[in-house]
């Protein structure tokens, strides 16, 4: 009975909220805008009498895509964005009936270069930065591979220290600004753009394109490191590397000014003031996009937009400038535009702006009445059903007991089964009735829902009650229903796979329409670009994934298996009772913790004690770092399950071996382990699956550089890292650079499928029957 009771309670708890109206503003998008949005949301919630808006990150592209998924309560109200909306987003919006959007520019974000506080200061220009990073640089009028290894080689005025720059990965919106305002400018200033154009062939336009592409081509010898994580990761990398310069947002730098020394660009130090004046060259506008149609739907939405744009928040000296947002001089105009209800020109098919919601005085008091929640009737109907079920159970049982006591006939089933059968014959039709009511459309009063539930329920119950007789095979009938339920539960696994497959295949299909499958599966270069022309070959990612997993298993399998053997065969009961759960704690520690552990502790340790003294690497993120830490994480997956499995090997086999004069270790190696092998293969399989699918550790420990190398002390990247980084980046959602995540997901899914089938075959081959 227990599972059924639990399920009923769960349903009763879950359903009531299902259809309740939303009263919180939903915001998502750029992680650069995120801190500003949370600060405003917090202040808004405290002062304006509305609930605090819910703010998510996830990247500009993902935010804009969610915004454009449709209109109504289930969709986003505001998308934060660190770049202007793209035509593909607008198209998506229109396709989904979102015909009006307001573009709100909230201010500017400065991009700064900073090194460790303890090191020397840098006076940079775009040209110097480009010369440090470019793959090819002009030398004596010709183009040559960039060999500069120290800043002083680029410019005598710069410190004599090795070049290492941590720049935003290609998923970041700030990378686009970095490309445009630093690399392209620097390339032109160095006179290289002309050389690149001259080297290219084709029309003038083609030449210019080729030159731009060549300008953005960065060296791949480890001097330039893409950071796919956030600024906190860049800071940790800079803190661990005395020579490195990192790229940060102004507000992040200002909050960590005690750790970082900022570089001047063109002789100007970045501050809120110099950026607002336009003296500091590297900055970008920040936006959010809001659906005016939601102003009447979500209480406080309009109020929030205007509050955000008020001088006390986004103006000079306001709440946000205190946190590093550079105020927009045109803030008042933006505010007026919102007040006037001016919407973005969305091209053909968009509604003319005149029909957009008038700036009506929608005071919070005048908010539209909250629609009657559909949850209540469901809850009442479920309660009625539960009562009916309980009554049916008791009645059926009692009647069966009475008939049994009165008659002399031999009963097929005990009364409890008759009770259960009556319960089922009442509850099943009742639940069907409720479903039908929900399918027709959950309208109307609770009475309707209850009658839709109770009428078939009562009829079924009465029928079941009347059927009670000594001959009725109640147990068989109940068991048949239970068996159907069991089969249904085991089918959930199939449905899950179908769901995964469908959701991956559909989007991967979109990807392969935009990008040739042959290049994806056979190219050995992974180099996504912001403006198209990316190389998205999967091999470097696959290689990184397997290399890291291999090292992880190299650590986890011996340690885990030996621990399991010791625990099962040697340890005293007391030791075992404490050690086993202690090791299992390792499995429950969130992977994010291992990631930090890899980044801060293990990575620098390996670099300083192994990689650098041996001259085989200088990066603290490496395959070895991630593999080792992941190995630690995976130990309990091997040890716990192996231990259970070793324990399940019959004691008689151990006795048999010991009785022949074998030592305990001979018994383990030659008798217990072969007997437990299938199970152990299963345990190692679980460990391998964890390692291959692990994300957080590799993000922070393995790095983001996609390359094919054998050196375990080099930074590499994995499939999972790229799924997250491409899916939560600032690129447009409908671009191959984002959609590739689904193709990667599909590949990963198919690879694990292949591995598992293989493992299952092995397991079956070795399986021993003790029955």
């Amino acid at each position, binding site marked *: 009975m227990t599972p059924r009771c639990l399920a009923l309670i769960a349903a009763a708890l879950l359903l009531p909220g299902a259809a309740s109206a939303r009263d919180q503003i939903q915001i998502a998008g750029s992680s650069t805008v995120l801190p500003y949005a949370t600060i405003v949301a917090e202040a808004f919630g405290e002062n304006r009498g509305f609930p605090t808006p819910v703010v998510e990150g996830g990247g500009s592209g993902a935010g804009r895509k969610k915004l454009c998924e449709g209109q109504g309560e289930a969709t986003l109200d505001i998308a934060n964005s660190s770049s202007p909306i793209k035509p593909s987003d607008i198209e998506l919006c229109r396709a989904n009936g979102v015909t009006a959007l307001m573009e709100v520019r909230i201010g500017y974000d400065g991009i700064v270069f900073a090194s460790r506080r303890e090191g020397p200061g840098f006076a940079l220009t775009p040209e110097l930065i480009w010369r440090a990073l470019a793959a090819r640089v002009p030398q004596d009028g010709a183009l040559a591979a960039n060999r500069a290894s120290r800043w002083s080689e680029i410019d005598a005025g710069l410190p004599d220290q090795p070049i290492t720059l941590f720049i935003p990965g290609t998923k970041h919106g700030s990378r686009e600004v970095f490309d445009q305002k630093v690399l392209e400018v620097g390339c032109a200033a160095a006179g290289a753009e002309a050389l690149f154009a001259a080297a290219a062939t084709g029309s003038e336009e083609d030449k210019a394109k080729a030159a731009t592409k060549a300008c953005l081509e960065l060296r791949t010898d480890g001097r330039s490191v893409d950071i796919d994580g956030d600024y906190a990761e860049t800071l940790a990398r800079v803190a661990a590397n005395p020579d490195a310069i990192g790229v940060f947002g102004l507000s992040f730098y200002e909050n960590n000014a005690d750790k970082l020394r900022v570089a001047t660009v063109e002789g100007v130090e970045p501050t809120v003031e110099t950026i607002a004046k336009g003296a500091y060259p590297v900055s970008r506008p920040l936006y959010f996009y809001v659906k005016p149609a939601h102003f009447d739907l979500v209480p406080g939405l309009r109020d929030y937009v205007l509050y955000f744009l008020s001088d006390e928040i986004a103006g000079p000296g306001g709440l946000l400038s205190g946190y590093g947002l550079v105020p927009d001089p045109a803030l008042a105009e933006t505010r007026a535009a919102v007040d006037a209800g001016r919407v973005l020109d969305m091209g053909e098919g968009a509604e003319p702006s005149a029909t957009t919601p008038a700036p009506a005085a929608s005071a919070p008091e005048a908010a539209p009445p909250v629609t009657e929640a559909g949850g209540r009737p469901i809850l009442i109907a479920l309660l009625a059903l539960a009562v009916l079920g309980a009554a049916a159970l008791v009645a059926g049982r009692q009647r069966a007991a009475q008939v049994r006591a009165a008659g002399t006939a031999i009963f097929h089933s005990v009364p409890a089964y008759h009770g259960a059968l009556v319960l089922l014959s009442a509850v099943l039709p009742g639940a069907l009735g409720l479903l039908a009511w929900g399918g027709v459309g959950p309208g109307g009063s609770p009475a309707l829902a209850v009658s839709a539930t109770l009428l078939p329920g009562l009829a079924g119950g009465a029928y079941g009650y009347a059927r009670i007789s000594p001959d009725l095979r109640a147990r068989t009938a109940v068991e048949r229903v239970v068996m159907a339920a069991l089969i249904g539960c085991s089918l959930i696994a199939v449905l899950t796979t179908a769901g995964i497959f469908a959701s991956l295949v559909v989007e991967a299909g979109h990807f392969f329409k935009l990008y040739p499958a042959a290049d994806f599966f056979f190219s050995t270069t992974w180099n996504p670009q912001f403006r198209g022309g990316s190389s998205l070959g999967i091999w470097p990612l696959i290689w990184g994934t397997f290399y890291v997993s291999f090292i992880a298993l190299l650590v986890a399998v011996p340690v885990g298996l030996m621990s399991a053997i010791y625990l099962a065969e040697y340890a005293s009961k007391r030791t075992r009772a404490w050690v086993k759960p202690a090791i299992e704690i390792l499995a429950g520690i969130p992977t994010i913790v291992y990631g930090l552990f890899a980044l801060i502790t293990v990575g620098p340790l390996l670099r300083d004690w192994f990689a650098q003294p041996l001259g085989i690497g200088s990066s603290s993120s490496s395959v070895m770092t991630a593999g080792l830490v992941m190995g630690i994480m995976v130990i309990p997956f091997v040890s716990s399950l192996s231990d259970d499995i070793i324990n399940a090997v019959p004691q008689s086999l*151990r006795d*048999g071996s010991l*009785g022949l*004069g*074998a030592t305990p270790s001979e018994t383990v190696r030659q008798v217990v382990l072969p007997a437990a092998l299938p199970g152990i293969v299963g345990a190692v399989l679980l460990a391998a699956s964890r390692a291959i699918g692990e994300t957080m550790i590799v993000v922070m420990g393995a790095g983001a550089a996609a390359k094919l190398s054998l050196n375990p002390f080099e930074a590499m990247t994995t499939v999972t890292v790229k799924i997250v980084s491409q899916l939560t980046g600032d690129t447009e959602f409908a671009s191959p650079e984002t959609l590739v995540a689904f193709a990667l997901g599909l590949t990963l899914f198919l690879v694990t499928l292949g591995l598992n089938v293989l493992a299952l075959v092995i397991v079956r081959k070795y399986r021993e029957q003790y029955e």
Partner: protein
Amino acid sequence: MDIETVKIKADKVQVFYGENHAIKDVDVNILDKTVTAFIGPSGCGKSTFLRCLNRMNDTIPSCRVEGRITLDDEDIYDPRVDPVQLRAKVGMVFQKPNPFPKSIYDNVAYGPRIHGLTRSKAELDEVVEKSLRRAALWNEVKDRLQAPGTGLSGGQQQRLCIARAVATEPEVLLMDEPCSALDPIATAQVEELIDELRTNFSVVIVTHSMQQAARVSQKTAFFHLGNLVEYGETTQIFTNPRDPRTESYITGRIG
């Protein structure tokens, strides 16, 4: 064949499981090249005592043995004795057939391999064949030595376990109710086998079945509640028991 050589001598043996006094003051002399049967009702301690003889009780942490047991006049509980060496000399066959999850060949070769009894593959083949012949199994399995041992029938499995035990050339073979999981035909085969084994080994068999004890053994010991009640020639025990408890048991009044 000279008779009446004492192979194992037990002197005031006590066994405790934690607080439980399982074996009390047992004195017994087990003769070489003889089948000795231990009989008695369930829980009388006969299996426990058997397991003392090759120190299998060592694997149970709470078990404690006192008194003196000697094999060829050497104390097997002496700290200098390695139980591993002891068990090579005193082999054991268990109640339930427990072939290892290996091939028939590897099952039999297991003991010789771990003890390093053979020098070449040919020699090992010979040992395996000899052992399987001694266990009267050779003709049934000679064509499928690489098949898994677990695939045999129950009686064959038990004979495989016996072959496995004799392959190490033990001096004593302990058998803990070896036929209790077998059908009558298999039981008859194993009993016949035990009788043959007597020519080479000293066999100690624990059995539940008095008929079996009468059939296969020359000496019989009757255990009751942890005490060795009576020990003597099998014929004498079954025809003319001295102790009233023995008489009650063999006439079926207790048990």
